[in-house]
């Protein structure tokens, strides 16, 4: 009998704590698979951040270190800079971690063109703490801390991180992808591979922003959540490649 699908060696054989319908699990698998396919698991160090993905160090089947809230790019800088060049270093960060408290760290590691790969999971909300507003929360979106819906007057406007970081000369590869259907999941995996390849070839800073779901805090079913990504998030956060200097560098 031919095996059609099996666990990836890129993830440990454990259950995750993620909610039903949350796409963190898919994204974990994409990253794990990519590292496994590259034969890079043994020479990879991942940096977990604070948020729902704080326990990702228990899931990725490679060396992992866990950073303070928002500081993963700085920690990754420290790891990458002192290890031999063949080591791959990635951060796995949510939107609260990366785009709010960690905005300084992500901008400056990008500006320095740190040769790291950032997996940025954007679900437009704080999941771990119970559904508070994130910098990426959409206009009108109701959260625990924007109960009347986000308004520009009260809470300001959402940040498009990929577009912003693409303006920095230090960035080499930046793409925004989504996980709301199979075709997009496959595209997301390609983007992740390109990002790690960028690092493997010592070409500098790479980031993949992945639109993700939070059925629990959005108050939607898993199916509705996928639809919400498509109907609400993608129009504000258009998918595509925002920076690709892999050939030039």
């Amino acid at each position, binding site marked *: 009998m031919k095996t059609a699908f099996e666990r990836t060696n890129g993830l440990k054989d454990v259950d995750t704590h993620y909610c039903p319908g949350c796409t963190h699990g898919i994204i974990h698998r994409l990253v794990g698979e990519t590292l496994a396919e590259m034969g890079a698991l043994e020479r990879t*160090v991942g940096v977990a951040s604070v948020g729902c993905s704080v326990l990702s*160090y228990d899931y990725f089947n490679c060396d992992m270190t866990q950073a303070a809230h928002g500081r993963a790019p*700085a920690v990754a*800088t*420290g*790891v*990458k800079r*002192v*290890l031999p060049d063949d080591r791959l270093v990635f951060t796995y960060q949510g939107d609260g971690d990366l785009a709010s408290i960690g905005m*300084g760290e992500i901008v400056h590691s990008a500006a320095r063109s740190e040769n790291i790969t950032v997996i940025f999971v954007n679900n437009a909300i704080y999941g771990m703490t119970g559904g508070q507003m994130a910098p990426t929360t959409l206009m009108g979106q109701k959260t625990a801390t924007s109960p009347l819906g986000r308004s520009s007057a009260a809470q300001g406007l959402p940040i498009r991180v990929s577009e912003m970081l693409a303006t920095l000369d230090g960035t080499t590869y930046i793409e925004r992808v989504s996980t709301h259907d199979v075709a997009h999941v496959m595209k997301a995996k390609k983007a992740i591979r390109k990002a790690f390849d960028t690092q493997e070839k010592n070409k500098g800073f790479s980031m993949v922003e992945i639109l993700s779901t939070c059925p629990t805090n959005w108050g939607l079913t898993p199916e509705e959540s996928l639809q919400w990504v498509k109907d609400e998030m993608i129009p504000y956060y258009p998918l595509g490649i925002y920076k690709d200097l892999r050939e030039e560098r």
Partner: protein
Amino acid sequence: MGKVLMKGNEVIGEAAIHAGCYYFFGYPITPQSELVAYMAKRLPEVGGLFLQSESEVSAINMVYGAASAGKRVMTSSSSPGFSLKQEGISYLAGAELPAVIVNVARGGPGLGNIQPSQSDYFQVTKGGGHGDYHTPVLAPANLQEIIELTSDAFRIADQYRTPVILLGDGMLGQMMEPVEFNEKTETGDNFMKDWATTGTEGDGLPKVITSLDLNDVKLEQRNHRLQAKYRKIENNETKVEVKNVEEADYVIVAYGTVARIAHSAIEKARQDGIKVGLIRPISLWPFPKKIISDTSKNVKAILTVEMSAGQMVEDVRLAVEGKSPVSFYGRTGGIIPTVDEIYREILKLGKGVTS
């Protein structure tokens, strides 16, 4: 190698390199900026890495990363910047990562000023960040001692897997004195770092470095392990200089640069026939409680002198436990106590005046 005339801040840098530290992440702040500049120049010369971070917060987290990867690593700052590093130091303590953090302290609170101060005693010796932890703190009084204590700091960090703080002040950082370095440099390679996250290649299962334990029982176990380690450090790493205490009627407790000024005042008093001794804590944590406790049984009074409004004096009083009167003299705001001022405080002891 012979003697060289160097600035304190630069001595710290060279001492770190001699101790086998080839990685430095830092951010400029007066009065420690010469250390950052020294590392920027020297580390590439010896094949190391210097990186100027975008903030103190980033610097300490870069240190966390480099320490995770098993390297001897240092960062430095001065009081306001050091406060910013406290979050990271708590994480280093929790994740049990070795690193050396320098604080060339200045006047506070807030932005304060850039003059020397010892008003960071509480924040360096009492944990400083969140959670139950301590960091060993070493406080050199002269530039030659910086070399010795920097080497000690890295050794303690690696041996116990803990962040260690080297505490000076603006005066120590800015002054020049002749110093002599050992011909031999250290590598730190004698410490097995099989816990380091460097990639699993050749060493089995994936390793995890974290300070998180969502399970309360496990987190308590982690705390017990940390506390056991701290008791071991207290037993093994307490360091103190004691001068003329045996037959003294009075004893001054002072550390760092202030101990030097106190020593000059003591010499003056002894010329006048007043028997004064000096206890100089070199490790501020662990604090040399025993010698202070023992001494307090045999003296008429103890005077603590600090460039603060009275911080270390609390530890002195805890050690003395009422066995002798403890008075305090301090200057704040970056003002350095003079020999005469301390001398006058010694005279007050004789008159039984305690403040």
